[in-house]
C-alpha cells in the first residue's frame, strides 16, 4: 500500500514540469519512505530520513529553485538510449534478485552471520541498549568518522562554490505586520525545538536518534528563526566563518577521541582506552563522538542554508 503510494509519487515527479511541485513531491516521497522504514523496524533510519530527506533536502532544493527559476523548459529529447540503459539496469537487478533470500526470512545469510553477534553482545560490550548506535559509533566507528568528514566536505564545497555570505538585509518576506503570527508561533516553538535536539543528542544511546539527527534538528531551529525573523538577526547570533570552524572542530573532536586511544596504546577509535572500565570507556567514547557529529552536522547544515539563502538572484 505504502509502496504503491511511493510509486505514484515518483512517477508524478517524473512527469511534472513545475519544479516547485517536483520538489514538494520529493519531500512527500521522503516522508513516505520514512514511514516505510518505521514499518521495517528501522527507527533510526526513519528518523534520519524524515529529518534529512523531507527536511534538509527539500529546504535546500527550494532555496536553489529561488535562484534558478521554477519552471522547466519543454524540450524534445530522444528517450531511446536512456530507456535502454534503465531497462538493462532493471533487468540486471531483477536477475540478481531472483535468487535472493525471501523478504523477512530470519535464516537469510545477512541475518545469521555477523548481525546476531551485534545483537547478543553489543549491549554488554558497549553498555548501550540501542544496537544501531552501538554499531554506528563503535563497531563501525570509522565509517561514521568518514560520514562526518563527508558532511564537512559538503560544507567546504558549498563554501568554495557560493562563497561566504555577506549579511545583507534584503530578503524581506513581507512587512512586520505580515509575519506577526508566524513570529509569535516560532518564538514559542524554537526553545522547544532546541531542547528536543539536545534530548535527541544525549538520549541516542537508549532510544532512536543521535548526533546526526540532533544536529539536523538544531539546525532546523535556527533555520526557522532565520526564516521568520530575517537574516540579520540570525547572523548576529552566529556567523559563517565561525560555522565552518565549528564544523571543523566537530570532526577534530571525533578524530582526537580516536587519537587519544591510539596514544594510549590501543587501536585507533578503541574507546575502551578512555576509562578504566572498558564498557564505561565505550559509553564515554560514544557520547563524545556523537557530540562531534552533532556539532559538525549542525554547523554545516546551517552554513549551507546561509550560503543558499544569502545568494541574490542575478539577472
Amino acid at each position, binding site marked *: 500500500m505504502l509502496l504503491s503510494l511511493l510509486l505514484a509519487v515518483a512517477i508524478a515527479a517524473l512527469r511534472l514540469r513545475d519544479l516547485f511541485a517536483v520538489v514538494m513531491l520529493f519531500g512527500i516521497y521522503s516522508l513516505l519512505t520514512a514511514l516505510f522504514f518505521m514499518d521495517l523496524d528501522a527507527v533510526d533510519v526513519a528518523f534520519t530520513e524524515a529529518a534529512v530527506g523531507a527536511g534538509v533536502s527539500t529546504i535546500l532544493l527550494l532555496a536553489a529553485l529561488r535562484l534558478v527559476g521554477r519552471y522547466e523548459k519543454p524540450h524534445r529529447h530522444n528517450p531511446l538510449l536512456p530507456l535502454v540503459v534503465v531497462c538493462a539496469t532493471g533487468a540486471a537487478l531483477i536477475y540478481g534478485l531472483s535468487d535472493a533470500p525471501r523478504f523477512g526470512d530470519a535464516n537469510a545469510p545477512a541475518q545469521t552471520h*555477523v548481525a546476531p553477534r551485534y545483537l547478543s553482545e553489543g549491549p554488554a560490550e558497549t553498555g548501550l541498549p540501542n544496537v544501531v548506535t552501538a554499531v554506528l559509533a563503535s563497531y563501525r566507528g*570509522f565509517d561514521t568518522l568518514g560520514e562526518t568528514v563527508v558532511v564537512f566536505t559538503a560544507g567546504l564545497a558549498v563554501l568554495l562554490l557560493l562563497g561566504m555570505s555577506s549579511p545583507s538585509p534584503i530578503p524581506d518576506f513581507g512587512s512586520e505586520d505580515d509575519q506577526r503570527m508566524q513570529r509569535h508561533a516560532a518564538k514559542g516553538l524554537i526553545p522547544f525545538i532546541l531542547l528536543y535536539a539536545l534530548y535527541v543528542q544525549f538520549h541516542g544511546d537508549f532510544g532512536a536518534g543521535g548526533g546526526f539527527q540532533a544536529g539536523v534538528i538544531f539546525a532546523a531551529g535556527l533555520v526557522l528563526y532565520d526564516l521568520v525573523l530575517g537574516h540579520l538577526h540570525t547572523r548576529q547570533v552566529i556567523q559563517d566563518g565561525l560555522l565552518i570552524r565549528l564544523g571543523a572542530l566537530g570532526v577534530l573532536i571525533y578524530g582526537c577521541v580516536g587519537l587519544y586511544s591510539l596514544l594510549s596504546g590501543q587501536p585507533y577509535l578503541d574507546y575502551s582506552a578512555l576509562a578504566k572500565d572498558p564498557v564505561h570507556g565505550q559509553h564515554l567514547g560514544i557520547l563524545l563522538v556523537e557530540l562531534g557529529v552533532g556539532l559538525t552536522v549542525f554547523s554545516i547544515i546551517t552554513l549551507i542554508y546561509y550560503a543558499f539563502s544569502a545568494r541574490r538572484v542575478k539577472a
Partner: protein
Amino acid sequence: MTWQQHLPALAIILPLLSAPLCMLIGLRRVAWLIGVATNLGGLLISVGLLQQVAGGNVISYELGGWAPPLGIELRVDLLNAFVLLIVSALAFWVFVYARRSVDAEIDSDKQTGFYAGLLLVYAGLAGITLTGDAFNAFVFLEISALSSYAVISMGRDRRALTAAFQYLVMGTIGATFILIGVGFLYMMTGTLNMVDLAQRLPAVSETSTVQAGFAFLSVGIALKLAMFPLHLWLPNAYAFAPSVVSVFLAATATKVAVYLLLRVIFSVFGVEFTFAQMHLEYLLLPLAIIAVISASLVAVFQTNLKRMLAYSSVAQIGYMLMGIGIASAMGVTATLLHLFNHALMKGALFMALGAVVLRVGSVQLHQLAGLGHFMPWTLGAFVVGALSLIGIPLTAGFVSKWYLVSAALDAGWWWLVVVIAIGSLLAVVYVWRVIEVVWFQPPNAALAGKTEAPWSLLLPTWGLALANIYFGVDTSLTTGTAEAAVGALFGVTP
C-alpha cells in the same frame, strides 16, 4: 602497540584531520604548510608500510579494537602499499608545486578551502586504498569524490562548473551502483569484510545474486575509472580544473579506481569466478582496445593541450585494463607498472602545462607557437614526459609497455601487440604535433617577453621528468615490487 603498528591508521587520519585543521586556522599560507607537512608525513608512512610488508606479510589493523568481520579492518599487503606509495608520493610532490600555481589561479580567500579540499581528496584515496571493508571503501570513495567535485569546479573557465556537475552525476551513479553491488553481496554472505567475503563467496558463486552483485560493482568502478564507454566525464573535468588539480587527479584518482577493480576481481571474487566463470576478459579486452584506439584518435584532434592529455589518459587506462584482461601474472604486473609509470609521466606533463598556464594563461595549441624558445626548461620537461608517454626505451613508459607486450605474446595474442603498436604510433602523432608547434614554429608575436617558469614550479616538474628516466633505467624497485605484489595476488586466490 608500538607506533609502527599504527601506521595504517595514521596514513588515513593524518590528511583526514589536517583538512579540518586548515579550516580551523583559516590562513592560506599555514594551510599550504600543513598540507606539505601532512603529505611529507604520508609519504614517509607509506615508505614505512612498504618496508613492513616487503617480505610478503600482510598487516591487519583492527579499527576500534573490534576484530573483523565485526569491525572495520585496514588491510595492507604489497599491492596496496605500492599504490599508496604512488598516491602519497604524487600528493607530496603536487603540494610542493602547488603554491605558485594556486596563487595564480585561485582567489586568495578561497585558497585555504582549496588546500583543505585537496587534502580530503588525498585522504579519501588513501582510505580506499587501505581499507579491507567493502562499505568503508564506499564512504571514502564519496569523500574523495565530493572533494574532487569541489576542487575541479574552482577552475577559471565556466566549463569547469559543468564538467564538475557532469562528474558529480556520473560519479554518484557509479557510487550508487557500487552500493547496490555491496548490498547484493551482503544479502548472500552477511558480511562486508573483503577477506571474509572472499571466504564465503565460493559457496554461493552460482547464484544470480552474486553474479549481479559482481556486475554492479564492476560497472560502478568502471564509471569511476573512466573505462571506455563510461569515460565521458573525464576529459572536461581534467581540462578545465585548476592546473594543480589536473596534475593530482590525472596522476592518482583513476589509479586508485584501477586498484579497487584489481582488489575486487582478484582478492574478493578470485580468478576462478571472474575469468573462468564470468569471462570478464571478453568484456574487458574489446573495451580496452576500443579505448586505446579511439581515445588516441580523439586526442590527435584536440587543440586544448590539457584536454588532449585527458583523452590520452583514457587511452592509458585502456592499456591498464588490457593487462587485467590478459589475466596472467605478467599482464597484471604490466598493469601495476603502468599505474606507477603513468602517474610519473602524466604528473610531469600536467605540471609542465601548469607552468605554461602560469606564464601564458592558455594551453591552446595555436597560441603556443615557438614557446620553446621562451620557456626551454618547462617544455624540455614536457618532451621528456611525452617520450615516456610514447614508450621510448630508457623511459619509464617503455618498461610497462614492454611487460604488456610480453604478456600478450605469452598468451599468444599477437594481434594485441599490433593494437599496442597502433596506440603508441597515435601517441607519437599527437605528441609530435605539440613538439613541432612549440619548438619548430616561429614564435607567436603575442608571446614576446614571456619568461621561464619560476623555480618553485620547474623543480618539481623536472623532478618528475627525471623520475621518468630513472625508473626507465633502474627498474629493480618498480618491477620487483610489482612482481612480488602480483605474485601474492595470484597466490592467495585458489
